[in-house]
């Protein structure tokens, strides 16, 4: 164990721990932007600067490992001023377009700018209109909003093992771009980790503001991974899918189907009425008509040909409770073991 002091508090942590993690362990919050729990420290934003007694320059807490006996200060007028300058410099590029940004209301940058009471853009630079070269049509990249924290590219490389996107250019013209377009799986890991509104999803015109949206945690309907996701609901319509960092087997990740495959739920082609076929054509019917007809037919066939002349197929799409009821229905009500589903397909 390594012993150190942070803001007067004595802390003992394992060797190799960063100052940021030691501080969090001790319950001391240091502001961060580029740091993300699931990623190796990036060290690009410099929000997490701290002072170490005996060193003339502040160090970034996210990527500086603890050493025995150091005395760390996480908050001082000098550090506050540095962080404030850092934020002001980020705003050189980042427009204060929060009212029209999908991320407004749950944006780390917005929160920090508010916390540090920065009231406007202090430094100005010439803006250029740049073409976005993002590798997927499902994600919108806003170059001006991008603060070059590199979380997206790091996540693409470290979490997905893909490296489809990376930084390109220099100075004000730096942007995130597709360096390996073919590798992009449109999974949206980059959106999930982006601390600003530089990456937004392209599905759906009007999404509702984050504080107006109801997020319902549920289990994905696609493969057997069983990812935990939140369906975002606004006025009884699905406006998106989000995840919570660290929750479920997916720990906040999703694939393209989980994140963007929700449109079918509100498809115009969904069945909304029971249908009965007469003379080769379907006609809408009431539930009572449809169910009574099915019950009569099943009763009739059972009476004349026996229960085994009826077979049921349950569904790997449906819930446990529904599969249980379906086999109960076939076994207890119809009276046959002719019940199966597509486990084999």
């Amino acid at each position, binding site marked *: 164990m390594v012993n150190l002091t942070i803001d007067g508090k004595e802390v003992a942590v394992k060797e190799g721990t960063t100052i940021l993690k030691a501080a969090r362990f001790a319950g001391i919050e240091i502001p961060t932007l580029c740091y993300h729990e699931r990623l190796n420290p990036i060290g690009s934003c410099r929000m997490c600067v701290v002072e170490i007694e005996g060193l003339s320059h502040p160090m970034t807490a996210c990527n500086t490992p603890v050493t025995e006996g150091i005395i760390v200060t996480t908050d001082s007028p000098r550090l506050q001023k540095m962080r404030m300058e850092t934020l002001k410099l980020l705003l050189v590029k980042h427009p204060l377009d929060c009212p029209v940004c999908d991320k407004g209301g749950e944006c780390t940058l917005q929160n920090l700018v508010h916390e540090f009471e920065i009231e406007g853009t202090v430094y100005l630079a010439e803006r250029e209109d740049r073409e976005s070269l993002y590798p*997927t049509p499902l994600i919108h990249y806003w170059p001006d909003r991008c603060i070059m924290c590199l979380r997206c590219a790091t996540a693409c490389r*470290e*979490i*997905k*093992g893909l490296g489809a996107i990376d930084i390109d250019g220099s100075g004000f013209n730096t942007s995130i771009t597709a360096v390996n377009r073919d590798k992009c*799986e449109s999974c949206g890991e980059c959106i999930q980790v982006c601390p600003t509104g530089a990456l937004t999803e392209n599905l759906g015109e009007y999404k509702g503001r984050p504080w107006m949206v109801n997020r319902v*945690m549920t289990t994905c*309907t*696609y*493969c*057997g991974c*069983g990812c935990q996701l939140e*369906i975002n609901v606004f006025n*009884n319509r699905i406006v998106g899918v989000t995840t919570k960092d660290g929750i*479920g*087997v997916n720990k906040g990740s999703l*694939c*393209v189907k989980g994140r963007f*495959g929700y449109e*079918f739920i509100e498809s115009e082609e*969904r*069945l909304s009425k*029971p249908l009965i*076929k007469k003379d080769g054509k379907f006609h809408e019917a009431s*539930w009572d008509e449809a*169910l009574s007809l*099915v019950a009569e*037919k*099943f009763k009739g066939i059972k009476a004349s040909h026996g*229960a*085994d*002349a*009826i*077979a*049921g*197929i*349950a*569904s*790997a*799409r*449906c*819930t*446990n409770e*529904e*599969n*249980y009821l*379906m*086999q*109960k*229905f076939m*076994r*207890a*009500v*119809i009276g046959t*073991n002719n*019940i*199966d*589903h597509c*486990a084999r*397909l």
Partner: protein
Amino acid sequence: MAGLATAFGSGAMTNPIADVLKSEAILVTGSNATENHPIFANYIKEAVLKKGAKLIVVDPRKIDLVDYASIWLRPKPGTDVAWINGLLHVIIKENLHASEYIKERTEGFEELKACVEKYNPEYVSEISGIASSDLINAALTYGKAKPASIMYAMGITQHITGTDNVKSLANLAMLCGNVGVEGGGINPLRGQNNVQGACDLGALPNVFTAYQPVTNNEIKQKFEKTWGVDSLQSTVGLTVTEMFNAAEEGKVKAMYIMGENPLLSDPDVHHIEHCVKSLEFLVVQDIFLTETAEYADVVLPGVSFAEKDGTFTNSERRVQRVRRAIQPRGDAREDHWIICELSKRMGYHMNYGSPSEIMEEIRTVTPSYAGITYERIEKEGIPWPCPGEDHPGTPILHLERFARGKGLFSAIDYKKPAELPDKEYPFLLTTGRVLEHYHTGTMTRKGKGLNMLYPELLAEINPEDAVGLGIESGDFVTVASRRGDIKVKTIISERPDRGVIFVPFHFKESPANILTINAIDPIAKIPEYKVCAVRVEKVG
């Protein structure tokens, strides 16, 4: 599932997926995980990139995981028993097998040893096309790693020898003492969100919930008492494939199909179509008017996962909550409501106030779910078996002992697939999924997002074959088997081997299952989707 149940006494994934982060070596076979189980694939990549695990991929297609592998073996499709026996042969010859573990925890080793004696690398190479040196390398890598895990999916099971393939993988895992240990195990990745749950809850012709046999009198009586009925059937019912054949023969007169689309998903679609037409009465309950629903006499509109409460059980056996996010559309209703209402009209009352009350009944008759309540899984799911409310659930199976007592080795010989290429049908067809779509496309082809990325079917053909056929990427070809033909657009790719064509089965306008063969594994009754013979010709 039948394969693992024979070997261990339970057919589910033995270890949680996150366990691969503790594996020294990971063998992935017949599983294109990056496209079919993308989140599980993340774990495999993380194990390789961050934890230094060695990845062995055994797959006829050059799938994306090959980029992360230390070793890639490319067997000819349908030769799995041969190469697995080859690995067993080398591991035994090199004395890398776990002798103590085999002695204490397993049976049947001597028979296995005798059986794999002839599967030397040269013999295996003749059958599978895998170079001897590569096979030896893979055997040494898996055999020396402590622990090593195995992942497989439909590329292993969708063969007439599917059960044999799985038993062979179980042999391999047990041989090296890798079952019942952290970071080890043998893990079938489930293709659909709730296949595990549908099996667990008794949607199978031979078992009630938790795999309790319908033929066992004591168990039958338990269900008769709970359900309040006089006499349940004690003979095993029909599987899906058998139901359709019975319909054609006139033995099955009516079918009730909930949330499935066999007219696209089952092999030899022309045959299924004929079977369905032979029915006197067909009820289909679904969220869309599927290809199957078109043939129904009555269609009942169900709802999607976003409109209902309940639970799904994932591939790791974890029972997790499903929560209603929006109200059902139109007059559509939850499938559990529909079943209860139908049951009432048949004279049997099912009274449940909510899905959680159904779970309360499930718990009383299902030992492995006995401890699972909605309250307990509110925040995080629980992996079964969970026999009581004070039980934390079971992430790793077979820890102290196998579910069946001792692990059973099976001595298995290689058998050829049902239909191999010949002069008339010189190509081998293999089917599967792509990342952007899912099963019969009922859900994924409805929105614009996923279809922007993958709008139409692309059949993969090897560059050398493309030269022979005189085609370029984007050209159309006719793919014909003995059962029918379809027209498909091609993409020239290194992914399939020479002589192999890969066709995804999501597309109703070119249904790959018109071509596939209705040859099934005799035990698991799984069709051989991964191998059949076809002819490929340029269109125009």
